[in-house]
């Protein structure tokens, strides 16, 4: 891209920044007007724009000159507004955030002995910038992976005949008896109100549930219940599960409406 400043634009203010006319666009940002729209589209949001400003000047992300960056960023926003480009709200939010950081950096840091020392106001922004940069890079890495259709092509040769059969399911009589046994027992469960079982400790059950959930990735919700224990046992297990959810020790996952509910330990949440 050519870096040239068109003469005729010196007459009119290029933009209004902080109420001051800006006769020339900021040099370090200057983009020919007709390319500006393309340029804006090249950014994936305020973090991306900010990273660009930082990287372009070879600045250390961990030690951003906040006043400078804020000024550049705001100039940029003003420029875009002037071009009547539709500006996503996120860009303005970021401008406000930068201004806030800048103002906090100008104030003396309060030092109360009983309180934790206030951190560097830039810390949160830096954290977000770094986090975003990681995934920006990860996106590039993923794009570079050899992938189907572009770099890899699946082979598929003709097979003699692709007929498929739809055999009917087989059932054994014992499966049927089992099903009947099950349904009768459940019917008993609904009709009987006698509680004969000893009281089971909910906490103890919580440990048991957690232990059985922890060893595998996903556990079928229904596997956690032992019908044999009767109504009381089922209730105790259910209460244990509710308590575990309340304490965020397990998570329930249901992929489809009315589908199988899966339980997994929260510590497994990071990985698949």
């Amino acid at each position, binding site marked *: 891209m050519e870096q040239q400043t068109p003469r005729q634009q010196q007459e009119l203010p290029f933009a209004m920044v902080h109420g001051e006319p800006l006769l020339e666009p900021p040099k370090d940002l200057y983009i020919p007007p007709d390319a500006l729209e393309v340029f804006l589209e090249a950014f994936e949001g305020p973090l991306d724009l900010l990273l660009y400003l930082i990287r372009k000047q070879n600045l250390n992300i961990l030690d951003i000159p906040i006043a400078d960056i804020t000024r550049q960023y705001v100039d940029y926003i003003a420029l875009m507004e002037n071009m009547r480009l539709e500006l996503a709200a996120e860009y303005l939010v970021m401008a406000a955030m930068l201004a806030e950081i800048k103002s906090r950096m100008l104030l003396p840091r309060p030092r109360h002995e009983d309180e934790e020392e206030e951190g560097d106001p830039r810390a949160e922004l830096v954290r977000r910038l770094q986090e975003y940069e990681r995934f920006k890079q990860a996106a590039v890495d993923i794009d570079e992976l050899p992938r189907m259709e572009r770099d890899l092509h699946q082979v598929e040769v003709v097979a003699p005949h692709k007929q498929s059969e739809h*055999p009917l399911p087989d*059932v054994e009589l014992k499966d049927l008896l089992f099903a009947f*046994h099950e349904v009768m027992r459940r019917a008993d469960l609904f009709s009987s109100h006698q509680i004969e079982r000893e009281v089971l400790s909910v906490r103890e059950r919580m440990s048991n549930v957690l232990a059985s959930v922890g060893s595998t990735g996903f556990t079928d919700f229904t596997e956690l219940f032992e019908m044999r224990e009767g109504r009381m046992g089922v209730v105790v297990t259910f209460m244990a599960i509710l308590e575990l959810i309340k304490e965020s020790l397990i998570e329930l996952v249901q992929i489809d409406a009315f589908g199988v509910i899966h339980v997994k330990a929260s510590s497994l949440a990071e990985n698949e």
Partner: protein
Amino acid sequence: MNTQKISNIVEAALLAAGKPLSLERLLLLFADDEQPHRQQLVEVLMQLQQHYQQRGVDLVEVSSGWRIQVRKEYSPWISRLWDEKPARYSRALLETLSLIAYRQPLTRGEIEDVRGVAVSTNIIKTLLERDWVRVVGKRDVPGRPSLYATTREFLDYFGLRGLDDLPPLAKIREFDVINPELDLPDPEMDQQAGARQETVQPQDAEQLLQ
């Protein structure tokens, strides 16, 4: 470009194309300055054909060009790729069927009363289609619901001479007293697990049948 590279490109193209490729089409894969002679291409195809002689596929010329296909002699194995595994019936279906067997004739509403949940129309439809269940009448209550009963085909399928051959209800109730360690399988869950079919072999059920 050496012959090996030309051969590899031609082989890859034939395998990836999913349809026959003519000599002309194959020539178009190459840029002008690397394009092999037609004769060279034919030789490459001949060599590939020879190469496949001992293998699972075959290079043949059909009307619209050259095609790699599975050797006919292997089709019995390859066709199994598209065989569908028999599905398994859901627990809901088996429970519904068992209730019809033991409590017939009864209505869908009565089945729902015992099971505590609605019975889907699909289940009834499947049972009717399989000829295991039929409608034997209507209950004389509002809505006149159909009364379901099992069929002769049901008895034949399960090797029963008559409904009397089914174990009595009392025996079934004792089921888990006899075998407290029984881990009741959930057919629907089993189906998801896919591979491990028949992991639970309730021996007692077999005993009951003897």
